[in-house]
């Protein structure tokens, strides 16, 4: 009974994460330039990868499969690593793109560019 509840809670979390991931993919495809696409990408990493990994851990804990605590622990470790690492990566990429002037855009105000 309790394991069924945990399993279906995991299913709901994974489905919500899938919806977020679909929205992030749409934004990645439709947004105009790199700095706006960065917003869609960070939604796709936190709500579209960290949240579903926690959901998959709940699904593994709630289903009677062999080695389910191993699967759940791996999912939680991956979620923790992603939660720490993905914001660092996107900040680095934004800084590098601005520094290398790789993106053509027409900003209203660009204070980081004025300082140089």
């Amino acid at each position, binding site marked *: 009974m309790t394991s069924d509840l945990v399993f279906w809670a995991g*299913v709901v979390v994974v489905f919500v994460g899938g919806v977020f991931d679909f929205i992030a993919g749409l934004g*990645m495809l439709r947004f105009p330039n790199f700095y706006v696409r960065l917003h869609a*990408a960070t939604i796709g990493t936190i709500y579209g*990868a960290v949240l579903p990994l926690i959901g998959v851990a709940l699904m593994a804990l709630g289903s009677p499969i062999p080695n389910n605590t191993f699967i759940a622990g791996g999912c939680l470790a991956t979620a923790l690593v992603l939660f720490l690492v993905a914001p660092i990566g996107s900040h680095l990429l934004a800084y590098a793109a601005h520094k290398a002037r790789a993106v053509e855009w027409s900003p209203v105000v660009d204070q980081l560019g004025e300082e140089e």
Partner: protein
Amino acid sequence: MVEFTHLLFAILAAPYIAAVLMYTARAVKGPTVPDIILAVDCMSYDLAVFLALLSVYYRSPLMIAPAILLALWAYLLDVFASKYLVSKEVGA
């Protein structure tokens, strides 16, 4: 019961497959290098989730270890690509 499990996992996996296809389109036609790197990042994070889902579906823990490696590999791609973009050399 078996068909129900198949249907459940198909419904759960469908948005991720659609998102991976859209990220692939952006990675193929992305106008600048940071766009391509960002799309490949999102693709590998999604593949990590997909591997975890597959390991629950196939009832085998073998596919969990590649998930954490994929996450760390995407971070490594970020770090080295941005270092190359800033200083025009990869370094050590």
